[in-house]
């Protein structure tokens, strides 16, 4: 209470200082929430690639949905290689016919034979309602929807869903994973192949047999197998394939993450410098104004430590208030932006409890550290001199 009374002596100045910190922490909260989301995608992506080699047509390159078909016969060639435990050929088709252009994960229709990975896939998706697909579903028009996709489409278990013009029965809805499966629809391989064929240019599509197509294959190396040697062998196949391992992924995406994290650190440093300097300035002015008062306190027996503690606590309170306000403001922005983006599937921010805690703790410590310098100079005042100060 006394602290708040001290702070309210110069209301405008205190308010402006708090506002400075509020803006810094607000920026920190918003950027950190964005980084959380991006890093979340990246690490779930990175986890996805662990223990796998993703094979797609060389012209597709990199990550993303394979758009140039691979002959399914290649799967058998790879399966025959030493050090291969399983090959899971898939087709992936964008959910929307319209080209997806936005932030976040695009919705995808994935067609695959349910047991093709032979239990090696560790992504751990589970059905929240209904069931997952099985090998027995091959040839049927059934689908399992990701949680976000089901909510967006407003489709419940047992209803029929229109996937690129074909009606599928929804037999399951996945539990949220907070990563790409949330926006996906799983279908049996044959159904996926049919949808995939339709996406190809008619001149190309007419020459192909749907059941011979895949857009990518996931190769599971056997335990202890030399992954580098395996990718080399796959690259050497006449089919002109490109391979992608977790190391490749981390390398490609790692630089993006680095830039993002650099922005966060940059924002944090700027708010540290600006906020910290303004707290130092405010507290230094307070100390000058209160020179006499500090003299009184020292004279009647207030120890140096006690003077420092009082002033540092005051600066800390500025930091706490600024931090809480900045967090509140940041949370509002994050909520509104996520709400606005929800319809288009563009969830940009993830404000975690840890981020919130960090932001407030950061600004509190910032305030206190910035308060130390003026508090120290106050504590060193000679009481007699300070009492004479007008």
């Amino acid at each position, binding site marked *: 209470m*006394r602290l708040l*009374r*001290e702070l309210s*002596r110069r209301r405008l100045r205190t308010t402006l200082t708090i506002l400075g910190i509020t803006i810094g922490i607000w920026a920190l909260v918003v950027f950190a929430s964005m980084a959380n989301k991006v890093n979340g995608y990246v690490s779930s992506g990175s986890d996805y690639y662990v223990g796998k080699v993703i094979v797609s047509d060389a012209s597709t390159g990199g990550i993303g949905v394979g758009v140039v078909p691979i002959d399914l016969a290649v799967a058998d060639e790879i399966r025959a290689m030493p050090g291969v435990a399983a090959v899971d050929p898939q087709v992936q088709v964008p959910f929307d016919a319209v080209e997806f252009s936005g932030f976040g994960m695009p919705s995808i229709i994935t067609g695959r034979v349910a047991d093709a990975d032979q239990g090696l896939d560790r992504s751990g998706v589970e059905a929240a309602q209904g069931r997952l697909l099985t090998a027995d579903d091959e040839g049927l028009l059934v689908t399992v929807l990701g949680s976000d996709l089901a909510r967006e489409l407003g489709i419940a278990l047992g209803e029929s869903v229109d996937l690129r013009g074909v009606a599928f029965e929804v037999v399951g809805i996945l539990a949220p994973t907070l990563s790409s499966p949330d926006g996906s629809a799983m279908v049996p391989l044959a159904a996926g192949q049919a949808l995939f064929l339709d996406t190809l240019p008619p001149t190309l599509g007419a020459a192909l047999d749907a059941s011979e197509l895949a857009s990518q294959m996931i190769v599971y190396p056997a335990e202890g197998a030399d992954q580098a040697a395996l990718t080399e062998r796959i690259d050497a196949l006449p089919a002109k394939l490109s391979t992608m391992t977790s190391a490749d992924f981390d390398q490609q995406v790692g630089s993006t993450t680095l830039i993002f994290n650099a922005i966060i650190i940059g924002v944090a440093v700027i708010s540290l410098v600006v906020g910290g300097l303004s707290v130092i300035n405010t507290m230094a002015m307070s100390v000058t104004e209160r020179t*006499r*008062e500090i*003299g*009184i*306190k*020292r*004279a*009647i*027996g*207030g*120890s*140096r430590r*006690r003077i420092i503690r009082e002033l540092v606590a005051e600066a800390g309170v500025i930091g706490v208030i600024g931090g809480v306000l900045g967090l509140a403001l940041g949370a509002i922005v994050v909520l509104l932006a996520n709400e606005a983006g929800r319809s288009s599937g563009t969830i940009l921010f993830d404000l975690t409890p840890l981020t919130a805690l960090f932001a407030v703790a950061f600004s509190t410590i910032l305030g206190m550290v910035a308060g130390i310098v003026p508090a120290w100079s106050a504590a060193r005042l*000679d*009481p*007699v001199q300070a*009492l004479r100060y007008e």
Partner: protein
Amino acid sequence: MAMLEGRNLRKTYRLSRRNSVEALAGVDIDIETGEMVAIMGPSGSGKSTLMHILGLLHAPDRESEPEAELRIGGQDMTRLSDSGRTRMRAAGMGFVFQSFNLVPTLTALENVALAAEYAGVPGRAAQSKARDALAAVGLADRADHRPTELSGGEQQRVAISRSLVNQPKLLMGDEPTGNLDTKRSTEVLAMLRRLNEERGQTIVLVTHDPEVGAACDRIVRMRDGLIVGNERRALVPRPRRIDAVSTPALVMG
């Protein structure tokens, strides 16, 4: 018994590299327990410096010869560190200043309680001690007022109650009546006198005011950093009434 013994007290203030002022040029002083003493002298005579040293706000020069000695209640004070002096000020000293020097953001009660807290009394107990101390100066009903809401006389009484809250060995006043009109100044002086007589409180006052001097048991006169006179009141029974304040009865000591 001597409450306070000072020997060879010197204080030199360095104003710049070449310019220094010897504010105290070697002073010996004794103050008895239960005595009420006025230190008087013209500006620049060193009386404030002496009070700052006796009140442990400053330390005497340490390198001077012969060596300075300062004992309060028999305890040596010359070797105390800054924090040691601070602790001693908190628990063993009370200060009353010319310009009251209350903390403006705190109420009368909080100002008094602050001194108790500095002496190590925990919050709740400090509050109740402060309430008692305010009641002793007749300000119980003003406890929740800020200094700006109090008259000068009331502020000085708050300051006196703050100086007394820890039952200090020594109460020091630096021109305690300097900012008060005659009526208030008489009141404050009477209050100090009563404290001295009824509780045996040892009091040292630095003052210009002859009336303050007249109310004390002894006047120590200073000039140019030295003690030049010691006037002791006649050893006649002290009048119990505050008329003593206006009837100086002093002889050379």
